[in-house]
């Protein structure tokens, strides 16, 4: 990745997490801000949008996933056949993964999941603090309601923090344009102002999406100069910025500061396919491949994660087949293996013996598997624990 772009995103991600940490002091007074030092298992789930097997783990797609294929597959338990038997929309699929039940909700996230998420099960049973569970998402189809269910005995008090970092960048761009200042997207000082303004005036957090409720928010002034420098470099390169890069950087900052036990990350650069650019869709797959590898390396690097983390990586679903009446790769609506069938890779603690498990599994199998890793075996869930993993 272009180093100047990375500088911008890095600076912005630190800024955002700093901002969040400050606001958390008000929201959760009395709870420890950091969970580092807890000796516990960690689980990270990465869901990466709609990606067909044809563009990834079939012969036609291996060139798009060099890190997944060459670096990570040999040390993973790999499931080449995972079926999404639910609604192949983003909000429904992510909430199905989190709850272990197929969800049939408003696609635009108006309602919370109808069953408890694994965040709620684990936080309630194990008395985990709020900063132990996070959802960090690129996907604008989600809302902060994804972090906790509508079930009375569970719900937001046991839910996850939810952040949509990409929305910060989008808001800044749109704000500049709507105020008649397109030059701001090409001007370092102006763009910095747009970003800062959004952070300073995000009173209800809905624009950025996190569920932490605080009424104090201010910009960490220490970050301003690095932000300005990074934006200056970014503008000079005339290079695009991707939302998934920023989502990973925020995730890294959250891992360093809060060391959550449960972290769900959703990438969505590949969803540019909805607009019909196949080249940009492939670029999104390659970005995802690289970011997952960076995340894996970070897990090995951070003491809070090294040797105690299980990482699951999976597309939410595939995409429609070439020639479908839903316009092929553009969409994910057809009831067909191209859309319903995808893959899952498991790395780390639970994947001590590399293997390929060809028995078909389902997205709803992740929740009971994750619960089982934390010793919770008695949940009444329709999914089954994934075969081939170490307990």
């Amino acid at each position: 990745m272009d180093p100047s772009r990375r500088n911008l995103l890095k600076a912005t991600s630190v800024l955002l997490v700093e901002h969040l940490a400050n606001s958390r002091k008000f929201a959760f007074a009395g709870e420890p801000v950091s969970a580092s030092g807890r000796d516990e298992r960690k689980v990270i789930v990465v869901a990466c949008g709609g990606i067909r097997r044809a563009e990834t783990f079939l012969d036609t797609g291996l060139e798009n996933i060099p890190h997944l294929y060459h670096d990570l597959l040999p040390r993973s338990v790999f499931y080449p056949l995972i079926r999404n038997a639910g609604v192949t929309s983003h909000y429904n699929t992510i909430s199905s993964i989190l709850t272990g039940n197929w969800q049939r909700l408003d696609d635009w996230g108006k309602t919370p999941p109808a069953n408890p998420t694994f965040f709620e099960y684990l936080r309630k049973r194990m008395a985990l603090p709020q900063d132990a569970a996070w959802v960090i998402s690129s996907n604008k189809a989600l809302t902060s309601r994804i972090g906790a269910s509508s079930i009375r005995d569970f719900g937001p008090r046991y839910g996850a923090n939810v952040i949509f970092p990409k929305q910060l960048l989008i808001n800044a761009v749109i704000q500049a344009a709507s105020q008649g200042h397109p030059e701001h997207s090409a001007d370092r000082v102006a763009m910095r102002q747009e970003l800062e303004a959004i952070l300073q005036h995000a009173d209800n957090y809905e624009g950025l999406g996190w569920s932490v409720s605080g009424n104090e928010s201010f910009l960490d002034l220490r970050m301003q100069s690095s932000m300005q420098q990074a934006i200056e470099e970014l503008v000079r390169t005339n290079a695009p910025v991707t939302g998934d890069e920023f989502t990973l950087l925020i995730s890294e900052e959250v891992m360093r500061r809060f060391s959550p036990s449960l972290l769900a990350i959703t990438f969505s650069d590949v969803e540019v396919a909805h607009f019909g650019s196949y080249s940009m869709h492939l670029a999104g797959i390659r970005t995802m491949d690289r970011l997952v590898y960076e995340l894996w390396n970070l897990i090995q690097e951070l003491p809070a994660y090294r040797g105690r983390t299980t990482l699951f990586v999976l597309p939410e679903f595939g995409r429609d087949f070439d020639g479908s009446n839903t316009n092929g790769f553009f969409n994910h609506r057809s009831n067909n293996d191209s859309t319903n069938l995808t893959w899952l890779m498991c790395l780390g603690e639970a994947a001590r013996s590399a293997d390929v498990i060809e028995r078909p599994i389902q997205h709803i199998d992740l929740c009971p598997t994750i619960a089982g890793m934390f010793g919770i075996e008695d949940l009444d869930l329709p999914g089954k624990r994934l075969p081939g993993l170490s307990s």
Partner: protein
Amino acid sequence: MNERPGKAQTGTLSPDAYRGLVDRLPLTMRPALNQQLSQWSLLFPFEQNRVASLMKGIEAFSPSGLGAVTAPLWALEKKMGVKDWNFSETHDTIENASQLARSEYYSEWRREVQKVFDTVNAAAQSATPTAAERTRLIFLILPRSLPVSPQSVWRQWDPLGHEVRISDDSERLCELALQGQQDLVTLAAQQGGVESSDVWLIDAEAKLHSMLSNVSPIAASSLGYAALKPFRDRFLAELNQAPKDIQATDEIVAKLRLESWEGWGLWPAEIANQPRLRKFVIDLFLSGNGALIFSNAFVEWAVAEALRRARPRTIVARFGMRSKPKPFTSIAIFENQQRVSSLPDVDDPENSAVDAVILARYAWLAASRYPEQQQTLCICVSEHCDSAYVVPPAGKRLGWGPEHPIASEELYRWLTTQYLS
């Protein structure tokens, strides 16, 4: 512009009479049909005839007979609880689609709807003799500016076709098709084609319409992404006002669909006086699939929708160049890149070529979904490679060995022979 009414308009039933027939169908079949009836004068002849045929099929059943055909779907709708939904019977809405898609019976519902359509259509067609079909043509152009890979450009195309090397300047083919003495529009007219929806020119840039001979005896339906820019910009700005809420978005979509868009001076001349074609563009942009954002997606989706709605005899479609995403705009891709960034546009030839190659193939795959494909000749030309991929109509063969290069004029001559047969 001749927008001859279809046969259905002069038939025994009117759209008002059809409404009574639609009311005999299960709830979930009504929105699309009612929407078409409410816009009857803006439908293409093929669409009018298709609705008329369906209505004829419904009429062919006694009330108890139709009840038997639709009973499984009625029962399924009851299980799905459709009556309790906020379900529009008058128009297709995003909320309708969303409610159906998240039902646990969605797949079963799709199967049952298809069964009803198949049964009713079969009843209609049993009394309707089918006319002999003339050869149809889909002519796709990957312009010279797109550096496609000669090794892979045709790799995934229909195995029934042939790669053909062109021995001279392949750009000549497009000139012959639109400007030659035997241009396609003239040929169509010579065979009695007088309906503008029979010939479509769809362009990522602004070349095809300007090439079209001024003396062409009939007008074609001509859409150019570049020429539509003033309208696109305005439309996108309106669409981007939609909040993240299905009901509110449905309201905005309905407003945009009903808006006349006259008086703004936004339409290009070739569309300005064609309400049916203007409506097609609005529907195209509202149906997504990138048609508002990327020129090549516009071309592919316009071809697919023209095939679905107008079933034209001839389509000429030309792909083109898109710009590189500017800083920040790739994360706000639904925004107008020129509006959100003052940086100049920079061409992205390599990635435009990747997009165009798959989307040209999708255009042919879209045609392959319909029975008319059997009579369709498809030719896709890569001007950069001076090669083409030719899929002859079913049962037809190339008139020469595909291993031998062929000159543009000779290839066009063969094409016109097929077209006139």
